[in-house]
């Protein structure tokens, strides 16, 4: 079972985890990832993030990533939830969970999905700082490198 959701309302990893665990019948392993907005990456502290996406296209691109993970590792359930709009510091921004028979598949698939989501899914992040200044975040080379690792370290 795959579930992909883009939402403007707060993301609750605890609630999502409860649902996910309940549905992971016959799975021996669940790996979940929670991405949280950090406030102090820059000199001027962040007030909140604003995230834009491309409705329909974003969902389709994430579905492709999940499908690609599925061709590489055997897993049963996968949920990807990404929040968009205004997101305050310390709030969850993304949640990915994978349930599989054994642990390695769940770890690899979850990390793969996150690495590809970072480089392939149409989301754009703008930082609004406490002094009122704001800036669109630049794509990171390190994210490209993390993604390219999977070309060689396929499994």
């Amino acid at each position, binding site marked *: 079972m795959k579930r992909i959701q883009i939402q403007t309302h707060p993301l609750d990893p605890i609630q999502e985890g409860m649902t996910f665990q309940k549905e992971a019948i016959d799975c021996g392993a669940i790996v979940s990832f929670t991405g949280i907005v950090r406030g102090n990456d820059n000199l001027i502290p962040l007030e909140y993030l604003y995230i834009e996406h491309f409705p329909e296209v974003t969902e389709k691109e994430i579905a492709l990533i999940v499908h690609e993970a599925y061709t590489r590792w055997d897993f049963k359930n996968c949920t990807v939830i990404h929040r968009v709009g205004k997101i305050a510091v310390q709030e969850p921004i993304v949640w990915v969970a994978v349930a599989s028979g054994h642990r390695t598949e769940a770890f690899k698939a979850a990390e793969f999905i996150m690495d590809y*989501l970072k480089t392939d899914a*149409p989301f754009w992040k703008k930082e609004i700082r406490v002094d009122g200044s704001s800036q*669109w975040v630049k794509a990171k080379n390190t994210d490209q490198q993390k993604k390219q690792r999977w070309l060689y370290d396929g499994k």
Partner: protein
Amino acid sequence: MITIRYFGFLKEALGISEEQIDAQCCKNTAELLDYLRNRNTQWADVLSDANIFKLVVNLNVIHDVTPISSGDEVGILPPVTGG
């Protein structure tokens, strides 16, 4: 008419989020980009290859030059920064 949608920082750098242009301008996505870049040096700079991650035609991400005609919608996506 062809609808063009701009995303992320492109919107602000170009001062526009969506526009409609005459379909006569261009037969495909490569010609469309040339057309937009030829508007002035600012457009050429903002729409440089480094600033374009992908193009989307009618909600489908495209990987090659794709024909476009009246009624089509083209999304221009800068490098993504989600997650």
